[in-house]
């Protein structure tokens, strides 16, 4: 997960809160005597902004994806499913999709599983002061932008003046030095690694907050039973944050399919399109290869992927409501 996903909310409980509104409704019967239509004034600014600048373009995108579109003249002609046919036959599209998938898998490993364990370790410390220091320290990379982090890691990975190769040399691991962003088999993983560095603190913070909400009596009961810290993590902490972990996974995966910034800054998808992800391939198809219709088709693919993840999330959050 990355700072950009702050957009999407730490965890997306859209429906959960939707259901919660029911008891709230009961609490305010008849408090409003204002003409009900005039009351629309309250929601219209938000709804209109969204309708015009979020939903309308979304709808237009489907229309654009069936066009051949010349960026120079602006002329458009209908070509049906041709862009989609081209997309399914495009090896770079599939490669980009695979890179997004790698992004999700690795992010789940580090930013969900890793961050959860890390949060448990930090919260297990005895001194509140240190807990706070670690939480803040780990979060700092998430506060700096992906652009800054990307540029910084470009220099860290640079084969000649970079920190990483120089460090490996010093450790006597000179054999491992390479052009991290310049090789087809390492470029995307070097970017993903940077993204873990940048984002793990954010997830750790989220888990730390969740762990704090677990009533301390549960821990005390466990310790009376003579349960060690490792087992306590598995038998007390984990079950209580399991639902949240599930949601975090989906948010992380959904974010992984929207990656753009760091790839653009670090490799622009190269070398030989090896680090291309859907977002950058969309951009390159539209703005470099002049094919806006095709770019819109890629956008449709991103839409359906993120939509199905969001629906999965809804389904999961519908099931929760048990814990704390």
């Amino acid at each position, binding site marked *: 997960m990355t700072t950009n996903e702050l957009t999407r909310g730490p965890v997306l409980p859209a429906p959960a809160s939707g259901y919660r509104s029911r008891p709230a409704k009961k609490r305010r019967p008849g408090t409003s005597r204002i*003409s009900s*239509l*005039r009351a*629309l*004034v309250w929601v*219209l600014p938000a709804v*209109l902004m969204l*309708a*015009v600048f979020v939903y*309308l373009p979304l709808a*237009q995108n489907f229309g654009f994806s069936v066009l051949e579109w*010349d*960026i*120079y*003249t*602006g*002329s*458009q002609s209908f070509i049906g499913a041709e862009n989609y046919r081209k997309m399914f036959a495009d090896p770079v599209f599939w490669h980009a999709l695979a890179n997004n998938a790698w992004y999700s898998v690795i992010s789940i490993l580090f930013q969900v599983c890793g961050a959860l364990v890390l949060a448990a370790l930090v919260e297990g410390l005895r001194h509140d002061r240190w807990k706070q220091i670690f939480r803040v320290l780990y979060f700092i990379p998430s506060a700096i932008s992906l652009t800054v982090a990307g540029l910084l890691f470009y220099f860290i*990975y*640079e*084969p*000649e*003046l970079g920190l990483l190769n120089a460090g490996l040399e010093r450790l006597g691991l000179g054999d491992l030095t*390479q*052009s*991290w*962003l*310049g*090789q*087809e*088999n390492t470029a995307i993983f070097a970017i993903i690694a940077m993204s873990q560095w940048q984002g793990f603190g954010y997830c750790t913070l989220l888990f730390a907050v969740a762990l704090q909400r677990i009533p301390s009596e549960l821990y005390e009961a466990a310790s009376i039973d003579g349960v060690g810290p490792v087992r306590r993590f598995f038998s007390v902490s984990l079950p209580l944050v399991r639902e949240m972990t599930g949601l975090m996974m989906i948010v992380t995966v959904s974010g992984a399919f929207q990656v753009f910034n760091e790839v653009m800054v670090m*490799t*622009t998808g*190269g*070398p*030989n*399109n*090896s680090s291309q992800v859907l977002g950058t391939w969309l951009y*390159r198809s*539209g*703005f*470099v*290869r*002049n094919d*806006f219709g095709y770019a819109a088709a890629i956008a449709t693919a991103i839409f359906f992927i993120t939509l199905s993840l969001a629906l999965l999330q809804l389904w999961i959050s519908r099931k929760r409501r048990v814990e704390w």
Partner: protein
Amino acid sequence: MLKVRQIGLAAVAAMAVTLTGCGSSAPQETADLAAEPEYSGTLSILTKFGGEPLESYFSDLASEYMQMHPDVQFELIQETDQSIKDKTKTLTASQALPDIYFTWAGDWAANFVDAGLAADLTPVIEPGTEWGDTFGEASLSAFQYDGKYYAVPLYNNGKFMGYNEKIFTELGIEPPTGFDELISACGTIRDAGYEPIAFGNKDGWPALHYLQQLFAYNVPQDTLQADFDPETATWEDEGYIRSLEQFSTLVTECTGSGADSNGVLYTTAQQALAEGRAAMYYQEILEFDTSAAEGTPLSKDGFGIFPLPVPAGAKGDPGAIEGSPEGYIINARSERAALAADFMEFVTESANASTLSAPPYGQPSAVVGAVTADSSSPSVVKGIEMVNDASSTVIWLDSVTVPDVADAWLAGGEALISGDSTPEEILSSVQAASEASK
């Protein structure tokens, strides 16, 4: 109730605006360039002179022009060699191209001409007109399409191997005349502890510059020209494979970064030559005065140039030099086309042309007589002479071909360097891209 309806209407209206905005492009009128310009309003210009030391060229001229015409304002968008491509495309797609914008020759400029985005400059700039006669005719005709002239050529350009004279003398090396000689010189230089050729291919195009020069040497001229146009292209000449192999040899034998080069910026490579750590760096005339800028170790050691040596048995034109003039198009849809033309005429006045050709800018002006030994650096003078004397010139691979083919070459060059694809694989991916863009 009324209020709600109004808001609803506003929403509908907003959507209508956005919907009708699509697909309708107003028929444009031919801009009257010869008309007396009205000296007011804001002139927007997209330049390729972003960054030090070039940035001040247009901004100085703009302020000078504003002193003469106080009602004129400027909006300068200054991009770099690297960033200007994406920026131009974005502006084009958003139909937000400025009044004056940079262009390369070849397919790049043709796209703007075909789409009616380039004003026809023929009446004011064709050879025989007062302004037109100040330019070398070849520079003008680089932007000639269907007999009409569409851009103001600002400077000429060509690609040369720049070298450190001190290192060459120290090691007893003469500028090589054959490709094999270059490769063997690299061994000598490497043994002496220098990086033979500094090379950074993070952006992909530096490899294309080597490749296109080798293509010009190895592929018969007619075949090469035919391959640039998807309609007539086959990309089957064996000269392409040979060129890819030669380039691969050069990367392995001569560069310090070798297979790692895709992770190195071209500016890092330029810096290696400037600081005397590398003996050579393949560069455009435009870069000469930056590489050997005052105060750099290279300027003390002495900076020399030679064309990329020709491989033995080459079937193309051994006298070809890669490079082409670069120019500025006046937007056909500009409301201030006449003013734009007037400003570009000012930019290419002989005094300003000389300034452009001299350090620190070092951009050899397309204006006749602007590059002189008095004002320009010796290397720039020599480079431009070689370009003028070349038996043919060939335009950059990434601007002469259509975007999909250029992109296939870009990816292929990177794959060749990292060793992930063979020359044959690369060529077939180019063939596929060319076939698809028919």
